């Protein structure tokens, strides 16, 4: 089963809705709560990055009873130094973003910690695609 969301880069108050919906869908499928939480955290961090740094984009969540694969694609500025970006505490977020509750520089490390596989493809001036894979320890009850 596949869910697809257009994520707006203009309205911060809507950011996170796609992740909330995916979380609820996994709950209905009876996936184990630990895997649901790991999915929710990883996807939400990626969704916020896409909104805050990437100017919005497209989120696709594809799941089977065993796993979920989330792809978040934006056409933003890209990430110049990925190793640096992955470090805890590194952030280029401006002050007004901090006032909105983001910019701790913990998003990418949180995604890494919570996912079974994390792939980031980024090209400066072109955009960023983040792929997150979470494997369920207790398979969900099939297709929703």
């Amino acid at each position, binding site marked *: 089963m596949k869910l697809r969301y257009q994520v707006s880069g203009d309205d911060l108050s809507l950011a*996170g809705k796609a992740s909330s919906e995916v979380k609820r869908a996994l709950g209905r499928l009876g996936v184990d709560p630990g895997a649901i939480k790991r999915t929710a955290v990883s996807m939400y961090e990626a969704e916020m990055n896409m909104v805050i740094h990437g100017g919005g984009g497209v989120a696709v969540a594809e799941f089977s009873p065993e796993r979920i694969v989330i792809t978040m694609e934006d056409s933003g500025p890209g990430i110049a130094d990925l190793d640096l970006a992955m470090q805890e505490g590194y952030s280029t977020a401006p002050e007004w973003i901090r006032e909105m*509750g983001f910019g701790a520089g913990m998003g990418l490390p949180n995604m890494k910690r919570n996912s079974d596989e994390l792939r980031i493809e980024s090209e400066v001036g072109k955009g960023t695609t983040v792929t997150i894979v979470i494997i369920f320890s207790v398979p969900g009850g099939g297709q929703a």
Partner: protein
Amino acid sequence: MKVRDIVATLDGILMTGEELLDVDIQAACGADLMSDVMAFVKENVVLLTGLVNPQSIRTADLMDIRVVVYVRGKVPPKDMVAEATRNGMAVISTKYSMFLACGRLYEAGIRGGGTREIR
């Protein structure tokens, strides 16, 4: 510690979540940056925050945190309370600062919190 004791300890106002008053809370996370909340790995958590925007409710919901306290007398707008109600969450406002609110809850018996290595 029950949610009703949290309300009492913080001289708080419960904005929504009557049905959670008897839920047991064992740990607290005080943060204004949501990724710090996302890095918190405890169960039965109350989130204390000064961040009054929809992301505080959404972050808590995604983390299965069912109780959110707004410190420094902040009152969340109606649509945020409505989102919390839809999510089955409790929302509390307290006049106390982050420091005083956390201190009062610690003194009243909530001891669970996160520790991290110094890097």
